[in-house]
């Protein structure tokens, strides 16, 4: 196998892992505040379709990215209204949001199936362009890829080095205690959901605007659920989420490697690989992860009245 095709595999692993990293970071923020959002799959779909539609209408991918982020934030606020204000069950509400996303994204994206857009521009980092082996079209990435790891570090800083992050984690551990300490648990949960939604929107934008540059119904293909699984894998920690995203990206790369090497494996069976790997990873880590979860995860905060 030539160097070029190996670089190609690594490059597509990076492209594939990026959208997942953003989604995982968003879900980490939600779950640290005590909220499981199974609707992430639907949120990603709506963000991807809105981002693509706006990018197509305006001809400007940057505006598309912003629109996708806003759509993600709004979808999560809708979810928040159910689980925070109306105190509904989080899992059922999440699945309702998932259905809503299935339908809404199909409606929004309907007239854009097969449309072409200008994707986010791709460029090579100035330092890397001096290495001739890397100076190929495959190693040109968009800005969202370059920002992914810095943003993961930023989320870590927010969660573990700021007062706001401390309050957010306190709400996830025990909302009543946080309330007694003078915090407003419901407001903090809304904030966590909104910021988490912005991040999910970034991931979805990367999928539809930067990477594939198309819209197709159900194009996220379970990435929302894989992200939820990766949050468990990464022990609710933003930095370890990078490892989770790399793992998934690696799974996709492995899939491509097998196809490129000419081993006769059906593409349909290869498609199942990321999901099976995710399940296997959860099994391998399952027993040890339990105590890392926020203590009030999934519990509805009943308020103090």
């Amino acid at each position, binding site marked *: 196998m030539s160097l070029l095709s190996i670089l190609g595999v690594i490059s597509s692993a990076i492209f594939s892992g990026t959208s997942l990293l953003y989604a995982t970071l968003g879900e980490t923020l939600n779950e640290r505040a005590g909220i499981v959002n199974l609707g992430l799959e639907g949120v990603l779909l709506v963000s991807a379709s809105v981002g693509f539609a706006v990018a197509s209408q305006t001809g400007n991918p940057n505006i598309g990215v912003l629109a996708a982020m806003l759509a993600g934030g709004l979808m999560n606020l809708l979810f928040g209204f159910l689980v925070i204000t*109306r105190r509904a069950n989080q899992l059922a509400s999440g699945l309702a949001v*998932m*259905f809503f996303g299935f*339908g809404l994204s199909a409606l929004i994206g309907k007239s854009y199936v097969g449309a072409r857009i200008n994707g986010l521009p791709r460029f090579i980092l100035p330092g890397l362009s001096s290495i001739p082996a890397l100076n190929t079209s495959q190693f040109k990435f968009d800005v969202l890829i370059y920002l992914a790891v810095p943003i993961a570090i930023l989320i870590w800083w927010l969660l573990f080095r700021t007062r706001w992050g401390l309050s957010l984690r306190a709400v996830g551990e025990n909302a009543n205690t946080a309330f007694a300490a003078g915090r407003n648990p419901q407001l903090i949960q809304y904030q966590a959901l909104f910021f988490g939604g912005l991040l999910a929107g970034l991931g979805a934008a990367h999928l539809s605007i930067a990477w594939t540059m198309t819209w197709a119904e159900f194009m996220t*293909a*379970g990435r929302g659920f894989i992200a939820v699984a990766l949050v468990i894998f990464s022990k609710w920690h933003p930095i370890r989420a990078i490892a989770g995203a790399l793992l998934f990206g690696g799974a996709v790369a492995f899939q491509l490697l097998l196809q490129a090497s000419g081993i006769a494996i059906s593409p349909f069976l290869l498609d199942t690989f990321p999901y099976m790997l995710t399940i296997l990873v*959860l099994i391998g880590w*399952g027993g040890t992860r339990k105590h890392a979860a926020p203590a009030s995860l999934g519990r509805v905060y009943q308020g103090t009245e």
Partner: protein
Amino acid sequence: MSQITDIPSRTSLFILNALLALVRYLFIFLVAFVLFGLILLIAGKDPILAIKDTFSSTLGSTYGFSEVIVKMIPLIFTAIAVALPSRVVLINVGGEGQLYMGAWLATWGALTFAALPVWALLPLMMGLGMIGGSLWAFIPAFLRARGWVNETITTLLMNYVAPSVVTFFIYGPWRSPGNALYPQTVDFVPAARLPTFFGTRVHLGLIIALGLLVLYWFIMKYTRWGLEMRAIGGNPQAARRNGIPLTVYLIVILCIGGAVAGLAGMSEISAIHGRLRPGFSPGFGYMGFLISWLSGGNPMGILVMSFVIALISSGGDILQINQGLPFAVVNILLAITLFVVLGRPALLKGKKA
């Protein structure tokens, strides 16, 4: 709750409660339809026409009505597949995958034992369908019972694996040579087809589904198993300390749920399609989850909600044909209904069972 003296007769109480429930449900759907109409309006469609079309094409003719019943059959199965595990606080979101694997193994039976007479082949296919679904459910059940991985996320992830497995077999070993354009298996022999009634597509699966619904009600209400399941549902640790085999229950109940979902897959391909084709389920597994939630796992509720969701889903076909909307749009109406149920104020909540 303690009863107060001066109790009205049981019958009049029952009728009153039923009427109240009906009013509540009607109100929920009214709100859901209005919100759905608003979204259609924003999308530039005529909401009145769309909703009128939905009702006239389904309830307006015998054929339309029979098609709603046809859609209702797999939904009853997949709703039971969620409702039964939910009694022991298991969240089975894997109905879709279990349905596909049920259809997959039933197809293997239909293709391999095509020479068998109908009285042997159909029960064999049903058995295989149930085994396929329950094997698929066994993996998350085992992982949950061992305390390794929560079943919600595994059942969800496995929904993405099952259709790929089915597609692999359709494109590979089972591909019919006759049809190059639409990959599918060869047509099943007549003995592998569930009988249909009255010249419509309503099939024997309806009787089986209703039978299972009655069985589910009977087991929960009148048997020791039902009592123990309710004990687990109330407080798993207390139930375990009272000698109820918690682990066994968790695994067996989720596998039975999977088996019922497998039956949905088997009856769909046997009665409706007569062959296995990729993507034959428009999300019956997910809709079953919705029905189970909307009905609170109550058998009568499952029956009513299955009908309603089947109606909405048939409406989705009509919207697709008449209004040029993607079929997935029907999910918006399903979701809004669930939003209204989940987010409704206390006034619209029935008393807790």
